[in-house]
């Protein structure tokens, strides 16, 4: 069985900032009168990848693929069931509160819905100041100054700082979330569907902003989204998730131009595009995503895969390197 060799994954030129090894997050299903655990939803089921300093790794998948759970488990907002998370070469998988807090300074998250993620009773100033109070020993004056600078950086006015979230549009609220995430100068930011709730013209503004901020602060992004076009725009490398597993990881160009996994191929062919001149062949996928509490044996995609054969039901395919950093978990590429 082909396994991922560590040497393959770690490239030497750039330093690895985040490394995830065989990460698993299972949610118990309770049932019966005694509420005993009768099964598990395998939301994330053995995911391995690394993210280099200054890089943007995009994670795409449909609903139920486990991409959001993955993001939360990396930040330890959810306790991983198994596996390892390394941040700056330090194993943070089992760190406790006190030791975790300084690490949390370096890792932030921007959520999808800025209506739900900002406390409606706090002014913009209070919202952005809060992480500074918890994480730094800045005095009041220093904090106010930093809030003003941050507001300007994300394209809001300093005079907006006394306003409350309801006074802003969705795009502006997402800018506030970004300012809040950047307040304590993190190294690593997870964007979980951060632009999905926004209209396209506003989405473009926020994507450009994230791009500028990455250059300015040398940020490393994990960009989680269901939208393959957006992921293509922002990412250096892309990982495709299906039912809790990574089925393909590659630098942007090869994965969009020459996708190897049948699921990636189908996903790409299903995106409606505005180029009206090209007639594209669509790969139709039958049926829905199977339940993650009872995934198919072997390859999780085999029930919908047009290329499935016997081996797919028997052996779970592992990620294998196909050259130039292109990994795929599919038996079609097994070497005899």
């Amino acid at each position: 069985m082909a396994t991922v060799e560590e040497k393959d994954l770690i490239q030497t030129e750039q330093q690895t900032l985040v490394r995830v090894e065989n990460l698993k997050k299972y949610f118990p299903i309770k049932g019966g009168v005694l509420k005993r655990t009768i099964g598990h939803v395998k939301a994330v089921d053995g995911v391995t990848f690394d993210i280099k300093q200054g890089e943007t790794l995009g994670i795409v998948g449909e609903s139920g693929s486990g991409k959001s759970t993955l993001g939360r488990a990396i930040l330890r907002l959810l306790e991983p069931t198994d596996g390892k998370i390394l941040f700056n070469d330090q194993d943070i998988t089992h760190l406790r509160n006190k030791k975790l807090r300084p690490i949390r300074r370096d890792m932030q998250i921007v959520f999808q819905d800025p209506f739900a993620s900002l406390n409606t009773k706090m002014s913009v100033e209070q919202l952005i100041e809060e992480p500074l109070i918890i994480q730094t020993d800045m005095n009041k004056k220093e904090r106010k100054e930093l809030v003003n600078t941050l507001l300007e950086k994300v394209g809001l006015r300093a005079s907006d700082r006394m306003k409350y979230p309801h006074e802003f549009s969705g795009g502006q609220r997402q800018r506030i979330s970004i300012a809040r995430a950047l307040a304590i100068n993190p190294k690593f930011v997870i964007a979980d569907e951060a632009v999905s709730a926004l209209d396209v013209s506003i989405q473009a503004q926020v994507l450009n902003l994230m791009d500028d901020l990455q250059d300015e602060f040398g940020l490393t992004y994990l960009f989680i989204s269901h939208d393959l076009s957006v992921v293509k725009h922002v990412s250096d490398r892309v990982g495709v998730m299906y039912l809790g597993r990574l089925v393909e990881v590659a630098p942007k160009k090869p994965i969009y131009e020459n996708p190897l996994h049948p699921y990636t191929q189908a996903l790409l062919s299903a995106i409606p595009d505005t180029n009206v001149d090209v007639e594209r062949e669509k790969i139709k996928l039958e049926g829905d995503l199977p339940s993650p509490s009872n995934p198919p044996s072997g390859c999780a995609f085999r029930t919908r895969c047009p290329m499935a054969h016997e081996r797919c039901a028997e052996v779970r395919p592992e990620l294998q390197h196909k050259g130039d950093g292109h990994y795929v978990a599919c038996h079609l590429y097994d070497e005899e």
Partner: protein
Amino acid sequence: MTNETVLDVKDLKTYFFLDDDKVARAVDDVDLTVKAGETVALVGESGSGKSITSLSIMQLINKPGKIVDGEVSLLGRNLLTLSDKEMTKIRGNDVAMIFQEPMTALNPVYTIGNQITEVLRKHKKMSKKQARQRAIDLLKLVGFPRADQTIDEYPHQLSGGMRQRAMIAIAISCDPKLLIADEPTTALDVTIQAQILDLMNEMKAKLNMGLLLITHDLGVVAEYADRVLVMYGGQIVEESPKKVLFKDPKHPYTEGLLESLPSIYKEEDRLGTIRGTVPPAHSFPEGCRFSSRCPHAMDQCFKSNPEIIHLDHDHAVRCYLYSKDD
């Protein structure tokens, strides 16, 4: 195949009269037609008035909203002059609607079968037995492999895509002449979206319906529409056949939208943007409603709102850049 005009909307105005004497002109002077067998897409961002347009056609506008002017003809009958009772006979019968979120559009305490047969028994006066048989046939038609079992299931037992299929079955149960689909696939994953849009297309051809597709997704428009209407600030700002619109957009708003869209087929370093945000419907700028965000705005644009200008027999745009006199 005939291509008679199914829906003809003229000068439609739907205003909302707010508490503080403000008037939100959510739909202001909208003209649109849909022919049998044709898919017309109404695109716009949130707050553009596209959903209010569709609800006005169905006459589902509640206080403080009111249709203040215009004409909505369905197969030559002006719906705005009908009584509530007469309108009830038309909804679900001659014109049907599919919404974005099938979980809220379906009643969770009735079985799928109940919800399809309700329509059939009301509009087609079928017996219980006839209606049940027809419901099973409809479910088979929209792709339920075990239709005779699904008919007794509840909405929560189905996945999102399957629920939307059930919605389509209800919508087409009385062979409507016009189907209005308001963001029908926005809540669905891309692979399921493709299945549902293909199904709608197939049903449209089979029943020779007119399809009014309301969406914010320009990719969906490019693949499924025949004609496109772009809406901004309660008005149609551009209308054209699909291919023309995507290759040669005229209105600065349409151009801006297309540039701000990332694509998997091109490599863009930086996305184009439209500055600012959509103004709320009670405080549109004087003059052209896009003037506050338009990169080409001229003096004239801040003074008066441009009329629709016909560039071609099928391409029209609401913009002073294309006025003929200067």
